[in-house]
Structure formats: structure tokens, C-alpha cells
């Protein structure tokens, strides 16, 4: 049975079709869900794609967190459901308090679109649970506000808790401790600035995004299986 993954579409999202195609290729059912939906029952996992939700006005993700769908995303996350935020989706998850820290303007104050190398530094997330530690991946980044920051206590906590799941090899945006992606303490919510869905075919330069998104789909499947098992017990 294929799992059902909701891809949240805000006005201003723009990567929803790209991630939909990638998830579809991995054998899961991807459904684009409008931001005014209140109900995500029937979905086994959620992806918040890249783009400029609500124009990123005020501050990236700051308006999106008030979209009606975010209550349902929060409920799913709190109940252990897998949630992935990519780029703008990562920003939305930090604004919504589902991930720690914040994303500031890039050091140098310029938008950066290029392919960079990242290293998998923890398996404690849906995105990296199936990928060997130390694996280096070439992934595109595309953002003006990808400079991760947080207070010292939070940094100590996420570092010691294995919540830093991806680190830049050559930091493109000034991110604290070269952080490219983090998970929550429970390990079911993950956000990253690079775009794994843009590295899905060698013809466009890299397919290094495949193991990450395959890991996410697998995590969703296992989550469903464990719930079904619990339900039957």
C-alpha cells in the first residue's frame, strides 16, 4: 500500500510541482493541499515545499504559520507524524515553532542559487534515517534567508541531541555551525535549506536528492506500519 503525503500549497509557494513529481517517482501518493484546508486526516506525512509563501512579506514564513492548515500540520507533528520542510518550508516550520532556531538573511546579504556539498551528520530524522553518516551529497541551494541561527543553549541542545542532520561542507550563507538541516528533538520533524527535489536526475546535474527523499518516504511507510501494528495490538 502506498502512503499518502500532503504537499502544502500556500499562495506564493513555487516548488510544489517539483516535489510532487519527486515523491511520485518514489512510489508514494503525493497530493497538493491548499493552505486553507483544516483537515489532514487521511495523510501519513506532510511536506512544506519551497517558494515565497504569502510573498514572504513581513518575514519568511511569518504569515504562513497563521494559515489554517498549520493547525493540522502541528497536530500531525505533535502526534509523531513525519513532517518535512524544504527551504521556505523550513522557514515556515521554525516560525511555527515546530523546529528550533530561525533563518536570517544570508551573510553577504545576497540571494544564493548554486549547487553545494552537504554532509549527513545525524540519522535522527525522517530525511536521513536511511542514509549512512558521513555521506556527502551535492544539492542545490536557492535562498536569500538561509543563515540558520539560534541561542547558545538551543545550539548546545540540538548539537548534543543529534538534531543537526545536514551540514554544509563549504558554507554558502553564514549559517551557524554550517547547519544546513535540523530535526526536532523527537526526530519526526525535519527542515533543510537545500532542495533535494532539484537533484533527482543526472540529466539536470545531480541525483543526490534521491536517497534523502527515499528515506523520508520509507520513514513515512514505517510510521504507518508501526501505527497499524499498534492499532491491532
Amino acid at each position, binding site marked *: 500500500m502506498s502512503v499518502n503525503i500532503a504537499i502544502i500549497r500556500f*499562495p506564493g509557494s513555487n516548488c510544489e*510541482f*517539483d516535489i510532487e513529481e519527486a515523491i511520485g517517482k518514489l512510489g508514494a501518493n503525493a497530493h497538493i493541499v491548499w493552505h486553507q484546508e483544516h483537515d489532514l486526516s487521511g495523510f501519513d506525512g506532510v511536506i512544506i515545499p519551497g517558494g*515565497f509563501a504569502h510573498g514572504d512579506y513581513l518575514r519568511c514564513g511569518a504569515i504562513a504559520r497563521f494559515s489554517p492548515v498549520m493547525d493540522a500540520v502541528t497536530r500531525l507533528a505533535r502526534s509523531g507524524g513525519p513532517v518535512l520542510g524544504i527551504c521556505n518550508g523550513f522557514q515556515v516550520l521554525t516560525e511555527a515553532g515546530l523546529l528550533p532556531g530561525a533563518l536570517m538573511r544570508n551573510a553577504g546579504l545576497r*540571494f544564493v542559487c548554486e549547487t553545494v556539498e552537504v554532509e549527513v551528520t545525524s540519522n535522527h530524522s525522517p530525511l536521513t534515517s536511511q542514509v549512512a553518516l558521513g555521506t556527502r551529497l551535492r544539492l*542545490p541551494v*536557492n535562498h536569500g534567508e538561509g543563515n540558520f541561527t539560534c541561542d547558545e543553549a538551543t545550539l548546545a541542545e540540538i548539537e548534543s541531541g543529534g538534531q543537526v542532520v545536514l551540514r554544509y561542507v563549504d558554507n554558502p550563507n553564514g549559517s551557524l555551525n554550517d547547519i544546513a538541516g535540523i530535526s526536532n528533538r523527537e526526530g519526526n520533524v525535519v527542515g533543510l535549506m537545500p532542495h533535494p527535489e532539484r537533484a533527482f536526475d543526472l*540529466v*539536470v546535474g545531480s541525483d543526490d536528492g534521491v536517497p534523502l527523499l527515499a528515506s523520508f518516504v520509507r520513514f513515512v511507510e514505517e510510521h504507518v506500519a508501526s501505527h497499524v501494528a499498534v492499532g491491532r495490538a
Partner: protein
Amino acid sequence: MSITDITELISKDARHVPLGLLDKEYGSIIEVLGRVPTDVELAMYSVMWSEHCSYKSSRIHLRRLPTKADHVLVGPGENAGVIDAGDGVAVALRIESHNHPSFIEPYQGAATGVGGILRDIFTMGARPIALMDPLFVGPLEDAQSRYLLDGIVRGVGGYGNSVGVPTVGGQITFDRCYERNPLVNVFCLGVLPIDRLVLGQASGVGNLCVLLGSRTGRDGIGGVSVLASAGFREDEGGAKRPSVQVGDPYEEKRLIEACLELLDAKLVVGIQDLGGAGLACATSETAARGGVGMDVDVLAVPRREPGMSAVEVMTSESQERMLAIITPSSLDQVLEVCRRWEIEATVIATVTGADESGVGHLRILDGPDGPVLADVPARSLADEAPLYDRPMLEPANLDERRDTGPANALVSSDYSEDLKSMLVDPAWIYRQYDHQLFVNTIFGPGDADATLLRLAGPGISHTRKGLAMSSDANAAWCAVDPRRGTRATVAESALNVSATGATPMALVNCLNFGNPEHPQVMWELSETVDGMAEACSALSIPVVGGNVSLYNESAGRDIDPTPTVAVVGLIDSVVRRPPSIGWIARDRIILLGERSANVGGSRWARDVHGVRTGQIDEVDLAKHKVLCEFVAQLVREEAGAEVAPGLVHGIHTVGDGGLGVALAEMSVASGVGCEIDEIVDHRELFSESVSRAVIATGRADELISRARSMGIAAIAVGVAQGDRMRVSQLVDIGLDELSSRFHDRIERALGEIASH
């Protein structure tokens, strides 16, 4: 009314002067109407008959361009050209300039240039999937030019990234002729299922015209007339700032999605974007195309501020607005789609029938049953602007300017230093642009001679087909001989597209010129059109659209003639990344095409020695076509075959900067140096004779014999190896230095990394 009556009227009434209309144009308006125009009528004529909207100086010439081919679905005259890409998919393309606004306010000028061209594409029913931005600014040594470059790039990125359309290519030219008159050209391409194709046409008496998107404000009033259709005097820029529009990419993004949804649901009869000349343009053009009339209730137009006059409402160039013509029965559904996308939608006009003589009238009413503020034949605004055959004059000193003698007598003491000084990596620009969205980008900016995308997009599924595009311009070639220079420009663009394996299918042009009231500028324009017509006919590339930007002058000095072309091509099968700029160690380096020792018109002569005279070699268009087909065939074999033949490892066309720059870029891209022993002197190193390509191969004999069997000259010039670029007797540069000079040029000039 008699001529003397009209003359007398004009002498008493000078309302037309500040609007940029000439006495004789005012006379024509009186003649059309048979009376003195109202203020609203006069304002509408002044914007619709502006140079920018009416092409009144250039139309007479543009007719000479070849525009037809079996695959052309929509040619020039609509909002965008459309070609059939096969399998039920069409491609819409257009290029426009936003030059004057970008000098006054670089960020907003460039940003709204992007916004405007996007609307031209999605108004055809196409989803925009690619932008390219050919930019032309003054030298990096000039502080104002650096400021303009920074603002323009931030503007293109700020709008394009946020609106969700990748900027996948472009070009940057630095030249002193663009000081105080930068050029910002923006190309956009969209894809659509052929059955979604829609035209900007009103039809059906009783149908409703719905204004979608932003409210109408006082921004951009007179943008097309007082701003885009006049040059800049000294220090005038600031005073014209209120004529620059302000963009909102988020509004545009929602507008794109809402319009495509309306079109998919077949809720729209016709649709037109609002750009230059605002509502006056959109209402008169849609009515004129459909041969109908229109009653506009100007009070119904939602406004940003109170107290706006009907003149202001009808001529405002507020951005992010569209006019959709719909049947009354679909209004509720249209409003529902717009509500969901948070797009304001207001019925502002009704389609009316033509009068007894078949003329559709555009009437502007102050309230649904209010007084008539304007009543003019729609066609007279849209299609009947004056047509000028302006005087042309060939420059007196042509022979002197074309003489290649002085350039070819130049020598330098250090050709390595010359070469290093000519390297510019545009990565600083394109790193600030999303160039990957939709995951179609096989070759993005900097990767190859042209951009190569998968032919796909949301709603258009992937096939193996690819879409290539290249934008090219070389004003230095055209300044000396606009006709020959334009032929070479078209040839270069076609070869760039061919170098990715694609067959050129269509061309759009953006003709950036000086003041058309200068006879020499009109001569340049006319020669350019002829050169373009000759090259496009010879290479079988139809011109499907264009834009003319005149009055590019500052303080009385015209820019060099700058015809920008963008060629789009198709390739049937891309299963792997084709060879591009680069090589692998031990490759033999082959030069295809004729050798040349002419540096006339070259960047070396111009930038290193300040010599701007001397023309480039003539392109043999028949031979050039064979070369294009040959390189496309070679690359197609590598890209599309089940097993790649592996004959070609790298390819790079020779253009700006000549063989020297081409070889340096291939060295930098691959990280492997080269040893070149077949370049006889510095002239051959820097000659910009087009119709040439460098190919890297492991099987030189096979490649050379294949080329020669097609009648194409081919010689081995050297070998890829080592960590230095060496050209015997001329150049010896370590790869590290070559690389840093290439990559860091713009950042150093902007002070973002320390100068060396």
C-alpha cells in the same frame, strides 16, 4: 473640418504638448474624431500613439522581417510569439526592454521589466518557465554603472525568484556607450498545451471585461510617452522617477495561477495584460482585434487612492493587472477562482457591437449611465497611429570606421595580461537568480553556449525533448556595420543553440537604438532590420516577435545600435547531459570553421587598445547553416543515443573575445590546461570571426574527416593537458590565476572581495 480650421485650433490649444504629441499628430486626432478631443481622449491617444506603443518610427522597417514557417502558430503583433513544439505542446516567447526605467530606479525598473514580460507570456495561456536577462551597462570602473548593475541584478532576482520563474540565461556587456543609459532586456518563454492558446481579443456583444489584480494607482503615468519615448537630458533622471512603476511579485504570482486556472477551466473568451499605456491600451487593443466596441465604466475601476481623475485611471501603468473578457454566465465562477487566489476582480466594461459602418467604439463612461468622457474608434488608438518614414542618413565616415587597418596594426607587450583582462565570469549575477526551478535546467547560465531545458513544466509532462535558448548582442560589431554586425549576431545565436544539439526554430528581437529623430540612428535601424532579415531567411529562422526601444540617448549621445536576439531551438532526445564548455586531459582541440587574422571589431582592439574601428569578417550564411547543422548533429548523437558515441567531449563556440577567451573558458571549466601550437599570432588569438567552434575530442582524425566531408574547415590546434594555458609565443598562464581572474572580476570591481 478644413485644414485651416484644424491649424487654427492647434495654435490656440496646446494641451497636447506636455503629453509628448506633435502638432501634426494632434491634427490627425482632430481629423479622426472630426472634433477637438476631450481630455480623456487626448490622454489615451498620447500614450497609444507614443513611440513605445505604436512603433511609429520602426513599423515601416519591421515589415521586412521573415515571420512565417509551418510551425509558427502566432507571429508578431500579438502579446507573444507561439510555436508548435509537437505532441500537443506549444512554446510562447517574447523579449522586451525596460531601459529607461532601469536608469532612473534600477531595482524597480528591472523588476517591473520582468513582471511585464511574464504577463505577455501567460496572457497567451502559457505558463512562464524561463527568463533570460541580457544586460548592458557602463564599464565596471564607473561608480554609477556599478550601482546600476547591482540594482538591476537585485531587481531581476527579487522579482523573478519570488514570482517563481527561473532566470536561466542572459548576458552581460560592459561598454562606455551604456554609461547613463543601461539596457535591461528581458526574455521570457512559456509552455502550454496547444488547446489552451488564447488571444488578446474581445468578442461577443454583451460579454463582460473583468479587471484582475492590483488596484490602479498613480504610478507609471506617462511611462510609455514621457519616459520611454524620449531621451535623457543632463541630470533629468530624478525628475522622471514618478513615471517608474513599482512591482509586487507576490501579486503577480497569484495572478499567474488564477489566470491559468481560469484558462484551464475555459472561463475566458479573451485576455490581455495591462502594461504600457495601461487600461487605454488593453481596452482599445482587445476591442480593435475583435472588431468590436467597448463601454468602460471608469468609476468601477478599483483605485489605490481617492481623487484620481479618469485620465489617470485610463493611463496608469500600475503593475500586476489583467483584463479578462468573459461571458456573463461564467462571472460567478470567475469571481470564485479569483477569491481563492486572493485576486481582486471587478467588472469594468462591456463588449458592444460595431456601428453601422463597422467601427467599434471605445467609450469611457463616468459611471454606468454617466456622462461619456471619451468616444473614439478603438482601432484608431490601437492600429492607426501615425506611421513615420523618418529620414535616414548613412554616416559620412563609414569607410574610415570600417577600415580594419588600424586594429590589425595593434600590438601588445603582454598577451597573457590582455587575455586575463578580458575574462568575466557572470556567475556573480546568476548566483542571485533561481535558475533551477521546475527541475528542467540541463544547462543553466555559464554551463554551455546556450541554455538547455527539458521541455516540460507544471501540467506539461516530461518527454525526452529539450528546449535550447540563447540571447546574443554585440553592439561593437553593429556600430561599425549594423547590417553585417546583425547578420553575425543572428549567426552566433543560431550556432550557440546548435551547440547544445538543438535545431533553431524561432527568433525574437529587441532593437535598442538611439534617438530616431537622428537620421543616422534610423539608418542603423534600417540596416539592422535588413541584416536580420537576410540572416533569418538564410538560416530558416522565423522572427515571431520583437520589441523596439528608441531614444536610448543620454546628454545627446546615442548608444551604439544594440539589436538583441534570442533564438529558441528544439532537440528531440536528451537522455544525458550533452558535452559543453570543457574538455578532458589528452583531448585534441579542434577548430571548426575558417581561420581568421582580423581583429577589426574585436573586444581586444576595443577594450585593451581603445580602437573601436574596423569591422569583423563577413559571415558566409550558407556555410554557416551547414556548420550549425553539423555541430547540432554531433551533440545530438552524444545527448540522445542509447550508447553515447563519445566522439565529442567538449564544445564552445567562438564569439566575443575570440579563440583566446573560448580556450581560456574551456580550461577554467574543466580544470585542465592546454598546449596550443597552431595559432599563428595575436590576431588569430583574438579575432572574433563568427561561424567557428572549438571541439575537444579523443578521436581527432575521425572528427576532422567528418567535418571536411561536409565542406567545413577543421584543424587541430592543440592538446588539453597540464595546469597551464599555453599558446606558443603568445600566452602562458597558470590555471589558478586564470581561474581567479575569470571568477573574481565582478566581485573585485564591486569591492566584495579585496582587490589584488
